[in-house]
């Protein structure tokens, strides 16, 4: 069984981004970029499936600028077998990414696609579901446990009130929640080996996919800033403030 894992390069989770003064974009010049944390979990899960003998090959894919090759190398250092970059400088929105991934799935014929549940930059939480829809496959989103056997995946999902378990026939799309696993650190020898693994570069044109954005960003703004309040000395003073000043209890 082949597993496809899409990965996204995003501003590192620990960076607090700023909106440019003209409101056109967030300022990501000279900011640290990393693999989206949910995608790291997706890669780890695929590699574990391979180590357990359930998967034969793990292919990672990314859509975006040339720099995304680094993200693919990171995924290969974590154990993926090869990478595919759909290279474009154009702005990519979730629907376009889902269409690009569908084209890759049609070509690669994986039985399972594992994505992160959301990217921490656009916070859309859409691509996995959209890809499943375009392929006509079942989806198991927000997965915290995955068992694959006999052409089926049993998936425990995180829902608002607790957990839910569903069973999907393969091929299927799974999106990873934080709880699914703890990604491993890539060792130096594995980072060196990853440099020799195959990395194909294709373009949206060769895949025949229209990636024109459907949403126009009119402007970006900083949210209203919350000012720090006051320090209180003890529980009694805190309670007094909450009752008599803030009047919330």
């Amino acid at each position, binding site marked *: 069984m082949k597993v496809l894992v899409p990965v996204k390069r995003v501003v590192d989770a*620990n960076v*607090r*981004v700023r*909106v440019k003064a003209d409101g056109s974009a*967030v300022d990501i010049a000279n900011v640290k970029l990393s693999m989206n944390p949910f995608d790291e979990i997706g890669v780890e899960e695929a590699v574990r499936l391979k180590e357990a003998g359930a998967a034969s090959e793990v292919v990672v894919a990314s859509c975006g600028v040339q720099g995304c090759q680094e993200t693919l190398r990171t995924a290969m250092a974590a154990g993926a077998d090869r990478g595919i970059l759909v290279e474009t400088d154009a702005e990519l*929105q979730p*629907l376009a990414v889902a269409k690009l991934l569908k084209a890759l799935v049609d070509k690669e014929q994986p039985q399972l696609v594992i994505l992160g*549940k959301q990217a921490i*930059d656009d*916070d*859309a*939480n859409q691509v996995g*579901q*959209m*890809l*499943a*829809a*375009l392929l006509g496959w*079942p*989806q*198991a*989103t*927000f997965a915290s446990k995955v068992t694959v056997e006999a052409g089926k995946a*049993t998936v425990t999902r*995180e*829902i*608002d*009130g*607790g*957990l*839910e*378990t*569903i*069973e*999907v*026939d393969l091929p*299927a799309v799974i999106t990873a*929640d934080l*709880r699914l696993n703890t990604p491993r650190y890539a060792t130096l020898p594995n980072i060196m080996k990853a440099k020799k693994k195959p990395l194909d570069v294709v373009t949206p044109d060769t895949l025949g996919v229209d990636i024109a*954005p*459907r949403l*126009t960003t*009119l*402007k*970006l*703004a*900083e*949210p209203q800033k919350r000012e*720090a*309040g*006051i*320090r*209180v000395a*003890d*529980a*009694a003073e*805190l*309670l007094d403030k*909450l009752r008599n000043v803030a009047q919330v*209890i």
Partner: protein
Amino acid sequence: MTILVIAEHDNASLKRATLNAITAAGAAGGDIHVLVAGHGASAVVEQAANVAGVAEVLVADAPEYAHGLPENLAALVVSLASGYTHVIAASTAVGKNFMPRVAALLDSAQISDVIAFKAPDVFVRPIYAGNALATVQSSDAIKVVTIRPTAFDAAATGSAAAPSRAVASAAVFDEVRFVGQELTKSSRPELAAANIVVSGGRGMQNGDNFKLLDALADKLGAAVGASRAAVDAGFVPNDYQVGQTGKIVAPQLYIAVGISGAIQHLAGMKDSKVIVAINKDSEAPIFQVADYGLSADLFDAVPALTAALD
């Protein structure tokens, strides 16, 4: 202009987030239809019909809609969508699950977690864990929108009943089966809709110590939440998590206990009316957003606060 709101429910009662979605639909303007897809959910149909602003309730009653599986729900919504300008659902675990499927099948770009409508086709949504607000315009014929429940008031209930009509089921998707659910039992208010939330972080040290927060929450009639650190450490179940990837809350009062205040946690609670931080590290980032900060050992401060509430 007619808007379709997809009701979220457990076949017995309408979820509060749907009331927020109906208010959001009102902000977009136009007639509001509500779709109740379920099995044996007549009580939900009745509740939806009595919500202020609802012009009509569409009812799809069939076994395949019993558990809200997104494959079936999305196919149903798509079969109904052609008469509507907007399809709206709350950005809950259920809404996030099926709505992008609807959008892709309609070849429409979804706008996620909207916090304001500027015009019927212009929306505001947070990105980068709430550190930027994007105003976006959609050019799609049918706008597929999920709304952030805490950004819209709940629509009033108890108005005259709107008419309801049965709609035909869509094709059933066979490649997925519901196996079971394991819900966290709690007598406290629902986290996402509570007026007061008491949350614990890594500083709680273990799951047993959450009893301190339970006692405080019981006195305040509050819900109990947690940071990712507390959830990852196994102190409390995952559905307690407040933050970018957990629940977004905006209560009247948010009490953060032993929580440092990472970007990802703030994303889930910084729109609370009043924020209180109790933390022994007086440099913790949470104090930068707290209206009232108490730098003290939580193991002294929380019991003292609970006792003072008697």
